[in-house]
């Protein structure tokens, strides 16, 4: 028994000694599984997607022609498809800006003003929705925003029905009811992605040393000036990180616009439609490449504007 244990310890020790003197070997061992996953499954499928977008479909037979060309992209840039891209980008931009405006004050309050107890409660409140099904929450919003739903009932009982009617009569964003208008789509997108905007901003705020805020006040800065000159520059990377989440998640989502809002398609829905019944896999692939390209441009611009300088 004792001898066996010693033997086991002995061989373990040999392995430990062997690997201690060869850090490269340990690194290889540690990185092999994630590298396989990332390299083959993740990047591989992404490459397949990218390659697929350069093929095109034969208009008569409906068969995919495996020849590299740009005809699928020509199809992507037809007015009908451009509409889908522009609609998705506009929605993503509005959701991103609104999420930043909602998340910064909230994160500011949680990080700097709430006591330890309230902080835990608020933090849980931000995270709690992520523990329940996304689909259930979207359908819940359908009920909240429906014509006879909670919002219009509440607005009616405080005499604010006029405000809702006014909003629904607006061109483009209006509609027969909140749940079938772009206003509804926007509200639900904002609700669903808000935690992803709050968390990075909050993390950035927690990293700001409190003495910097003391120093700003000490040197004459009122709270507003301290916010502009000290807090905002230091949390811009957090805001940028959050905006990447809200922007890309909105750009690719195909469930929310299918349940809430008017019939016209968003990018995700177009991908779904083309790879399914239509069987136009190349066009679906081209639609999927579009958000990647848009995000690449977005990141490039954000970096140029110095969003990551304080990292």
């Amino acid at each position, binding site marked *: 028994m004792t001898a066996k244990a010693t033997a086991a310890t002995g061989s373990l020790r040999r392995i430990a000694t062997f690997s201690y003197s060869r850090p490269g070997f340990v690194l290889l061992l540690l990185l092999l599984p994630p590298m396989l996953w990332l390299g083959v499954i993740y990047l591989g499928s992404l490459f397949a997607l990218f390659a697929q977008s350069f093929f095109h479909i034969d208009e008569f037979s409906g068969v995919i022609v495996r020849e590299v060309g740009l005809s699928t992209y020509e199809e992507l840039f037809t007015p009908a498809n451009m509409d889908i891209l522009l609609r998705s980008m506009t929605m993503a931009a509005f959701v991103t800006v609104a999420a930043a405006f909602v998340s910064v004050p909230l994160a500011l309050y949680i990080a700097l003003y709430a006591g330890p107890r309230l902080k835990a409660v608020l933090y849980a409140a931000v995270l709690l929705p992520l523990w329940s099904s996304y689909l259930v929450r979207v359908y819940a919003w359908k009920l909240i925003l429906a014509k006879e739903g909670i919002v219009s009932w509440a607005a009616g009982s405080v005499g604010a029905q006029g405000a809702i009617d006014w909003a629904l009569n607006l061109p483009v964003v209006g509609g027969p009811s909140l749940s079938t208008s772009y206003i509804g789509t926007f509200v639900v997108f904002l609700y669903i992605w808000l935690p992803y905007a709050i968390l990075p901003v909050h993390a950035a705020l927690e990293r700001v040393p409190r003495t*910097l805020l003391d*120093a*700003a*006040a000490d*040197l004459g800065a009122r709270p507003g000036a301290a916010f502009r*000159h*000290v807090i905002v520059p*230091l949390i811009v990377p957090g805001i940028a990180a959050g905006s990447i989440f809200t922007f890309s998640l909105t750009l690719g989502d195909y469930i929310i616009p299918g349940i809430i809002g008017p019939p016209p398609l968003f990018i995700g829905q177009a991908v779904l439609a083309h790879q399914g019944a239509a069987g136009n896999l190349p066009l679906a692939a081209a639609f999927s490449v579009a958000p990647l390209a848009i995000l690449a441009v977005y990141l490039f611009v954000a970096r140029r504007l110095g969003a990551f300088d304080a990292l």
Partner: protein
Amino acid sequence: MTGEGAVPAVELRSVTRRFGAVIALDGISFAVGGGEFFGMLGPSGSGKTTCLRMIAGFDVPSTGEVLIAGRSVGDLPPYERDAHTVFQDYALFPHMSVADNVAFPLMIAKVPQAQRHARAEETLERVKLAGFGKRKPSELSGGQRQRVALARALIDQPSVLLLDEPLGALDLKLREDMQRELKELQRSLGITFIFVTHDQGEALGMSDRVAVFNQGRIEQLGTPDDIYDRPASEFVATFVGSANVIDGALIGAAPQRFALRPERVRLVAPGVAQLVPGIKLSGMLRDAQHLGADTRFSLALDGGQAFHATLRHGDEEEIAARGRLGQAIVAVFDRGDLKPLAS
């Protein structure tokens, strides 16, 4: 020091601060004169930093009053007080250049950019950092950051400068240079400096007057000479420098306790003790500790009490004493060096 009838730059009137059941400050009163270099010395948790934060405006008294230039500041926020702080961790804004950090108070006051940069450069020169304006704080050493923090707090000439453990994070050599520079800077600017430290050398070396804090109270307030030569209590005697606390009964005096500085004690062999004048206590020489310029000897007196003597390294007497480790020895001192302590 405060002239007759002059308004103190900073005054605390019976200030008490409670944190729940804990009393951090217990009825503190003192006044700091215009242009004075005032030190607040004490162990951690003694209330000195709370005092500083109250003058800066980061904390408010539970009861009592804080006055700056004769005006009660009540719960005036920090940004409306004519006092700036040099923080212990310097609190430089990491996203701004050194020049922008230094010019921060001017930017807040909406001084035009060109003027603000000129004054930042001037102030940086003052703290011997000319030409460092374009760097980021992260590219500076600890000592340089300290100077930037100093420049930033001085650029708009506040009437009071508060320094929280200003030299705490610097290494020894730098600390000594900086002590001298701070003192010179304070003299040339004529601004009231109030600083907090737990280092007695710093407090005695820089201050015009020192307040010694202990458990939320001021044990003694006076010039460095007062504090060192005439300690008011056992706490002050042992916290500022080291001291032997001697019971009067031991030397045939009234039931009174005395402080005796170890450097005022001589050590002689028992055989020659009767030739040396002064009060004598015999004991056993236990240990010798090298302190660089001095050697600190630990004795056990005949009654068992611990006793210390400090002799200059290399002196005849010190060499002789080191030869008597583990043997009987006699400590000799003058009656005049015994400082009576309040009980």
